[in-house]
């Protein structure tokens, strides 16, 4: 609660939070079917209408309402982004924690695997995974999750290594505390701050990666609307109907900006140096 309040007190955090709140609202309305028009229904008479009173953000080649499709697309993007980042954060933290805790061979092995994954460009690795398994929402979540796991492993391992040598961990060993207790209470709890920041930033990347995959036709499958897909469909109509490209593009950009702004704000808020000043 305290953190939420500080985000609203932070100038860029406030903007970021407003954007993400708006996106969540749009996605929720979309999921409840409360869109201005049916996003999947085609109105052949209203093909390629520019933004106006009936269709606020215009229509596409098949006469479908852009705004309604954007709302569903945002929902789709957020589901994939949150799902994949949750997977990445869980797997990455676990791998990073165990690598730091066990050390030696396990550390070397885990982190080298992470290095190999990290060596591939994110989108290429995701493409590879989807090419093997086949496209779909769940595959996207898994693929993007795997792609961002190494970053979390690295973010956790470094501080975990230094926490492991702190005296309170030694103290825990003198009481005979279990490894699980020490790992969760003494290590993980002290890593909440860097993890929170990393999660927000990863959400921005995941959003972009999902759009990229859909653009290439390997993410969400038509006719379900998605931001990347809408961009892909608009690319041949750029001159006739620029709004078809403009609005999904802006939506992606604003979403990434929103998560990044929150991430920056969280970094400022959770930084122990600034924290001490306010405490």
């Amino acid at each position, binding site marked *: 609660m305290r953190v939420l309040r500080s985000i609203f007190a932070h100038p860029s955090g406030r903007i970021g939070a407003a954007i993400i709140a708006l996106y969540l609202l749009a996605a929720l309305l979309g999921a409840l079917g409360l869109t201005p028009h049916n996003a999947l229904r085609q109105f052949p008479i209203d093909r390629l209408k520019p933004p106006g009173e009936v269709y606020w953000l215009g229509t596409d080649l098949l006469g479908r309402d852009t705004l309604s499709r954007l709302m569903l697309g945002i929902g789709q993007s957020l589901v994939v982004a949150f799902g994949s980042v949750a997977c990445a954060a869980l797997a990455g933290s676990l791998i990073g924690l165990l690598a730091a805790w066990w050390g030696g061979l396990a550390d070397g092995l885990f982190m080298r695997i992470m290095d190999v994954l990290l060596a591939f460009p994110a989108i290429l690795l995701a493409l590879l995974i989807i090419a093997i398994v086949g496209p779909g929402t769940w595959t996207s979540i898994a693929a993007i999750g795997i792609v961002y796991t190494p970053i979390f492993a690295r973010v956790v391992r470094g501080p975990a290594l230094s926490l492991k040598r702190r*005296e309170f961990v030694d*103290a825990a060993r003198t009481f005979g*505390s279990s490894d699980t207790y020490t790992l969760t209470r003494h290590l993980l709890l*002290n890593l909440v701050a860097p993890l929170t920041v990393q999660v927000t930033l990863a959400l921005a990347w995941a959003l972009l990666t999902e759009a990229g995959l859909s653009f290439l036709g390997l993410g969400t499958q038509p006719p379900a609307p998605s931001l990347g897909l809408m961009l892909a469909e608009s690319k041949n109509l750029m001159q006739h109907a620029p709004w078809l490209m403009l609005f999904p593009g802006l939506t992606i950009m604003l979403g990434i900006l929103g998560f990044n702004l929150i991430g920056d704000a969280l970094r400022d808020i959770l930084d122990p140096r600034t924290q001490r000043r306010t405490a």
Partner: protein
Amino acid sequence: MSPLLSVRDLHVGFGRDPLANEVVRGVSFDLAAGQTLAIVGESGSGKSVTALSVNRLVDFGGGRITRGAIALARGNGELLDLTRADERTLQKVRGHDIGMIFQEPMTSLNPVHTIGRQIEEAFRLSQGLAGQAARTAAREVLERVRIADAGARLDYFPHQLSGGMRQRVMIAMALASSPRLLIADEPTTALDVTVQAQIMALLAELREETGMAMIFITHDIGLVAGIADRIMVMQDGVVVEQNDASDVLDRPQHDYTRHLLEAVPHFRAGRATRDDAPPAGAPVVSVEGLVVRFPARKSWLGAGGGAVHAVDGVDFELAAGQTLAIVGESGCGKSTTARALLGLVGKTRGRIEVAAGRSRRPVQMVFQDPFASLNPRLDVAALLAEPAIANGQRQDAALRERMRALLARVGLPEDALSRYPHQFSGGQRQRLCIARALMLNPDVVVLDEAVSALDVSVQARVLDLLVDLQREFGLSYLFISHDMAVVERIAHRIAVMYAGQIVEIGSARAVLSAPQHSYTQRLIAAVPAVDRRKQHFSVDMTQVPSLVRPPGYEPPPARWRAVADDHSVRVEVPA
């Protein structure tokens, strides 16, 4: 004679509103050329801020001088008000008139340059020397701070030198500008006692040679007794007493000065030991032939590596209800011995036997740094519950009751349970650590420098608490410390460790009053004390031997000589 430095009604504040956050409130003093002023106080008393205001380094820490004047007589006779000087003038003042040495010799030297380069730079900046002239000057100044083989040492990097050597390099750099005033901010706090005595003797000799004035900041009033001409005692940003050193020490006027003088553990050479030693019984802990080695650097083929012999054949017994103190200087293996006892480091060989006790974990530990040994993200209730949870107890009303009782017993308020570590002072945190160690009802508590990080007055109260708890719960203490005066107050028996081995062991009174081993004698001679200030210390340059041994090295078997009933000393073998 006009003073070298005259401070009048100095006020220094911090933060956005310096007037509201003043940490120094109206300090005035005069310092004549060649005089030494000691500023004594506990942490947060404003002693460092006062001294840093003199060369205006306080500006870089976010401080502002809000009122007052600091007049410095410069070398050319000009009188300068430092509170109004601009940064260019201040740089000149810092380079020529005022030298400074800091507490932490490791962090104040640049690790990527040789010490030669760093000293040469000091000469280049202050006297415009370059090339061979600077190098010669650097070698000479290193010789002046009594570093043997100075020419070769110039090419050393800071990490290749011991803490005492590094502090001498810092002093050499401060001397480069031939300052008329040297500010020393706790210059020996991070050092071992024997090294501290060396540095103090060196500073005293340099003062004689150069005739510079000194401002010496310290929390240890006993330490400055021998060197200060005047002493200024500070508390909460205010000077409570200042006078000639002998007046302050022998006829303190202010309550706080008296309190400080009483709180400082006076080392009385074995005359102040405890006489409540419990009757000898079966030992609760017995250690035999303990050896702990850490592999030293290995080549990548895994060959040719020696080992650091941190603990090399240590035997001792700890009886029920007794305090055995292990004293020695950093790197002597005393902490490693303690950690091996708790299984925090693996032993290479040897036998550690702990008698079955009141709980599954009869040995508990209190660490040196009360800030590092408590997880900052857990509240006190969770911190205290941890040992109980680890041993399978349920978190129920009985446990909470025990936590409350222990908190009250160590002198913490009832509402502490829901608070977090950062809301407590250092002394309170250490009490918390003691309470946590007692949660499992142990028989033995290992106290690893448990009071070293505390202010003297807090230290005295925690020591009293420890003695009370020992009587009440029948605890045995293994008390690891470098501070002879503290050890004298709490130990029944003392083991002196040097270079990984115990060199002397026996009853506290015998060891402290009639030390037999040359190292014990050196250690005791180095203890600063108010009532020994007239003694002269010579600069002793003995270095601790390296503990990195070639593979397969075994120490020669120990031969012991019994001095008295409970007092034996290791026979010294000439190296």
